[in-house]
């Protein structure tokens, strides 16, 4: 080895040269193949037994619009019920009290272990088990009058959702560093207040992406309530095609509405995520 006062020869100056642009011919080929396949599918549908005029006519029909409103009302209410039940069950599951723990575990076990459609049918047919319901001496009513399709769908979807959400919430709470519980205790916050003010806000950041997922699932799961006569969009579409036999056209109408609603939900989720990312945003961004 020698000390080098000057740089060694034989390494040309590259500073004026540019890197040539590559032609990704395989990508172009794949894209072309996909376009051909899509065109074939589109042509098949265009020439198939589909009356597209029916699709456009019923897309904004009053019954369909009322159906999508009912779908959204049910999805939002059932999800709200699911989040409340899920949060309560998750807090119970993480409590030191063995009674609360087993109640929460039993709830998750029962409602996650049976099909949603079965639960909906059970709620709707509750009158077969209990002809009258109420608080003895205060208020009684016939179960058939109380258990409307709306209430049966809300209870069925919401309670089932709570069983799934409890696991999402529990995962979120476990993701918060144990030092946060200790710091909260050290300044004298009680268990529940520490959960509400310190742990849950931090857990939300982790919980929102899977909850958004669950909500999108819920929007579509409301279609199961069509079997118990709840007038959501699929149920209303079915009623129309029972009358006019345009089955595929009306299924396409319902499908379009589901796609539209889900497409709107994604940016909403991003706004929510940004809110709960307080304090964690990277400085260099």
């Amino acid at each position, binding site marked *: 080895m020698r000390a080098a006062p000057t740089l060694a020869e034989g390494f040309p100056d590259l500073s004026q040269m540019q890197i040539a642009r590559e032609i990704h011919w395989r990508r172009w080929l794949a894209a072309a193949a996909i376009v051909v396949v899509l065109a074939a599918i589109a042509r098949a549908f265009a020439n198939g037994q589909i009356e597209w005029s029916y699709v456009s006519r019923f897309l904004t029909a009053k019954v369909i619009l009322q159906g999508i409103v009912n779908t959204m009302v049910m999805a939002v209410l059932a999800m709200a019920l699911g989040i409340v039940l899920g949060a309560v069950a998750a807090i119970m599951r993480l409590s030191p009290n063995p009674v609360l723990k087993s109640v929460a575990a039993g709830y998750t076990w029962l409602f996650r272990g049976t099909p949603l459609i079965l639960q909906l049918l059970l709620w709707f047919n509750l009158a077969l088990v209990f002809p009258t319901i109420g608080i003895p001496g205060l208020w009684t009513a016939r179960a058939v009058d109380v258990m409307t399709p709306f209430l049966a769908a809300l209870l069925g979807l919401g309670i089932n959702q709570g069983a799934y959400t409890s696991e999402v919430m529990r995962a979120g709470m476990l993701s918060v560093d144990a030092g946060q519980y*200790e710091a909260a*205790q*050290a300044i004298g*916050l009680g268990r529940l207040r520490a959960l509400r003010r310190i742990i849950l806000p931090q857990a939300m950041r982790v919980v929102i992406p899977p909850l958004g997922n669950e909500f999108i699932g819920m929007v579509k799961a409301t279609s199961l309530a069509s079997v118990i006569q709840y007038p959501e969009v699929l149920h209303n579409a079915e009623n129309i095609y029972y009358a006019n036999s345009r089955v595929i056209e009306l299924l396409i109408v319902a499908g379009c509405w589901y796609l539209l609603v889900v497409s709107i939900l994604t940016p909403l989720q991003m706004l929510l995520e940004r809110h709960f990312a*307080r*304090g*964690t945003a*990277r400085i260099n961004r």
Partner: protein
Amino acid sequence: MTKPLVAIRSVSKAFGEFQALRNVSLDVWPGEVLCLIGASGSGKTTLLRCINQLTVIDSGGIWLDGEMLGVREEGGKLRRLTDRQIARQRLKTGMVFQRFNLFPHKTALENITEGPVQVQGRNPGEVRAEAIELLRRVGLATKADSYPSQLSGGQQQRVAIARALAMKPMLMLFDEPTSALDPELVGEVLAVMKELAQSGMTMMVVTHELGFAREVADRVVYMDHGAIVESGRAADVLGAPREARTRAFLAAVI
């Protein structure tokens, strides 16, 4: 005659097979700055955590300001206090953690005001003014609205000290407050602690900073294997230790 602020009597604690504290007894007097030193696993952090009841002792007793911690005597038996009563007892101590444990979703100011407003139910405007004064005291007056992620480790730890002070504790507990810091940030935290010691605060400090112990501590306690081996004036324990184990530890760390 004054009474000790903290009286620890025959305290033992095991985590499964591991005996973290063996029959520890110690007094801490009002206004005293006491440094706990020793190898990791010697029980010094556990002892500190027992005083604010993040760890529950197996046997023995701890009195803080004359009040028995965690239990009360009733008909010749000891009964555990409720969570609410324990939370009330915790308010007499302020804790500073090795890894700061600031609330990441709250600003520096909100971290400090959380306890006084939520727990003590004090007037938010008044608490806010005090919090700003505390931030000024730890040299962070301009960082009130910064989130913890925007602060350096040393700044975070100083906010954590201010958060503990905001509860107006009688006793400050420091659990290796500078161990998680880059070397160049240690000084700013020690300076705040030194100022606090000079203001007359009673402090228990678990630390590896022997220079700080020598300069600031009234008393140094050396622990090993869950027991107190030697305790005395800082100059004596650190300068002329009586016990062979203390000498071996000091020789290893210096």
